[in-house]
């Protein structure tokens, strides 16, 4: 039977909620992204102290990947080289760039923080997820003006067609000040019609992102 790339799971972190493949996992009244992410981290006892050192963009991507990959055993089912991470957002690392800028604004008190500076690149999110899950495959972070499911579908499909990946974590990881929207999808080759599997196509990617499914 033909196997095609399909959505075998997804995790949404948005508007003080965590949703895993359609199930509401966690909800909170906390409006500040950083405090909300820490609340989620503590609630699930994730036990990864480096979490506290991450900037908010990385915390968002890290948490979404933790839920997305839980019980999926991707590291035993795939070689690390065959798993890709392709992410997108609009604000890049602007939130942390702003923090860094503030630390170097005053020439008389010029103390840039190395631990802030290392997060002034959006693709560090890919690095954090890769380190956590021992993923060594293709990693690319696109900065797009808006959520673009067509591009997401096209690029990831090409990676599968060219046999660059056997499994791919893709999605939107956006954070800027108090606004955040994480939507990660796990894409694997599988037979159509299996339970819990959604077709990997732009309309479905968008429906999931907008929680219309």
């Amino acid at each position, binding site marked *: 039977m033909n196997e095609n790339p399909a959505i075998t799971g997804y995790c949404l972190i948005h508007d003080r909620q965590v949703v895993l493949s359609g199930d509401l996992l966690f909800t909170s009244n906390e409006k500040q992204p950083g405090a909300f992410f820490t609340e989620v981290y503590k609630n699930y006892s994730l036990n990864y*102290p480096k979490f*506290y*050192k991450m900037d908010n963009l990385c915390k968002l991507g890290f948490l979404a990947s933790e839920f997305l990959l839980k019980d999926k055993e991707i590291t035993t089912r795939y070689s690390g080289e065959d798993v890709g991470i392709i992410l997108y957002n609009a604000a890049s690392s602007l939130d942390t760039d702003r923090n860094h800028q503030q630390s170097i604004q005053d020439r008389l008190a010029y*103390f*840039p*923080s*190395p*631990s802030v500076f*290392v997060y002034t690149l959006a693709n560090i999110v890919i690095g954090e997820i890769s380190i956590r899950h021992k993923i060594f495959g293709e990693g690319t972070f696109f900065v797009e003006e808006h959520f673009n499911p067509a591009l997401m579908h096209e690029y990831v499909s090409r990676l599968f067609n060219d046999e660059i990946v056997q499994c791919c974590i893709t999605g939107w990881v956006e954070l800027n000040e108090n606004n955040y929207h994480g939507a990660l999808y796990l894409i694997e080759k599988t037979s159509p019609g299996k339970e819990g599997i959604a077709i990997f196509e732009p309309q479905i990617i968008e429906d999931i992102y907008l929680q219309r499914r």
Partner: protein
Amino acid sequence: MEQLIAKLKSEIIEVLNLSELSPDEIDENAPLFVEGLGLDSIDALELIVLLEKNYGLKLGTAEEGKKVLRSVRSMAEFIRENNKG
């Protein structure tokens, strides 16, 4: 000296975002890197910035850095010996 060590522990927790730790949980004699707190190279840079920003002290060489950043106590000793302010 003990007062300086306590202050330094709080500052380290703050600058390294070790918010899950309390000062009492940090052994001032334990190695800061690899063992002990398991700090990395970025943390080392952050500690160098801490010494400069909070105490006006600069490390001269990499060798001196290794010696000074060995533990909280060695950092405190370096501050006490060099901070005349």
